[in-house]
């Protein structure tokens, strides 16, 4: 329990640093900006209470916001994602439930399951984030293009991380 807790804290800090120091400085043709830090919300244990997921999403987003100087933007999007994670996990639950001691990773539930899980939640997060950033719907097509491209790269990074870092 303590181990899980401390590992999550470390993961939180590492992901924030990677996002802020590396990924935020990568702007591919102005459209693509991968947001890798959502991995933290994706990897939180199944047993985490719902309110903790939402609150941690908010805090994570707020931390990113503090570095990006956009208070509230990432916080709102990530909290939204954390809220939806509760329903997504309930919907994607295997017939005999999540195994005790397992985590939402490729290692435990396979590539397909994790891809669908990641794809949906990352897309939701990016959708919320980019529309909050634009704050209007007049250029919805343009915003949507950014959402799709950025989601693709974020999901790509997350899937790669599953094979490089979180192999077990």
């Amino acid at each position: 329990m303590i181990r899980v807790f401390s590992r999550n804290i470390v993961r939180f800090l590492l992901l924030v640093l990677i996002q802020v120091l590396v990924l935020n400085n990568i702007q591919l043709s102005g459209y693509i900006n991968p947001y890798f830090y959502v991995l933290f919300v994706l990897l939180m244990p199944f047993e985490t209470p719902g309110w903790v997921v939402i609150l941690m999403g908010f805090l994570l987003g707020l931390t990113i916001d503090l570095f990006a100087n956009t208070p509230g933007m990432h916080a709102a999007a990530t909290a939204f994602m954390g809220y939806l994670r509760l329903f997504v996990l309930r919907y994607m639950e295997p017939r005999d439930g999540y195994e005790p001691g397992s985590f939402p990773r490729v290692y435990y539930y396979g590539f397909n399951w994790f891809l669908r899980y990641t794809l949906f939640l990352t897309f939701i997060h990016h959708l919320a984030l980019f529309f909050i950033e634009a704050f209007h719907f007049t250029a919805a097509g343009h915003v949507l293009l950014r959402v799709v491209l950025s989601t693709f790269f974020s999901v790509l990074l997350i899937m790669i991380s599953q094979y490089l870092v979180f192999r077990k």
Partner: protein
Amino acid sequence: MNNLIRFIVRNHHFFIFLIIEFIAFSLLIQYNQYHRSTFLNKSGTALSAVHSFTNDLEDFFYLRDANQELARQNAHILNTLKKSYKSNKVSYKEIYDSVYFQKWHYMVARVLNNSVNKQNNFLTIDKGRRHGVGESMGVVGPNGVVGVVRHTSKNYATVISLLNPNFSLSARLSNTKYFGSLQWDGADPQVCWLDDIPNHITVNVGDKVETSGYSAIFPASIPVGEVIEAQKDKNSNFYHIKVELFIEMQSLTHVYVIKNKLREEIEELEKKTQPND
């Protein structure tokens, strides 16, 4: 209360989510210049839309009062229109001359009401006491006698038409100056009968009939009509003369009221001579 708490506990994820999002959006709007201005702009538009809607609603409820106010203003404006005012102007031309004293005054009046097809016909004219119209004043039209003023009010007067059997006019033949009385028989509005002309004189068809001037009502020699038939009455020594009137009573619009400035003097004098009449 218990139910409410149970409801909140059951949906606590949703409420936490709402609170968190509220905080996040507060931060967003508070600290991001772009989002702040957009938010203020949009919320201003929304607020003004709400305001204009409530204003419209309010206006709707005040329509009744507004209508009454408008109607009142309309009445006020109509009252200031020129056509609402009856002109009291009387064109009056008096010439002071020591040799020729002006005896007859003519005053123009508009015919407001008129009838020709009843037995007792009257007219109403738009001049009354305040314009100097008095009872028993003569009324003439553009080409002949119309009648005599019967009653007057402040602004109006009624006129006994020539086409009224109660009215008889002192008239004479213009060539021989013999006079009689002209009266309507209640039939043709264009025909009157002249009686009391002695039958020893010659009366021809086409002879002109005019006022005699023997009353204080009409001046002498105002045209009345012309003879179209002269019947000799076998039982008396007088003619029964059919006279076609010049005046067309149906199409009267303006008439002249004649005022005799010496009337009282004459009447007073005649009263002295005939005290019993």
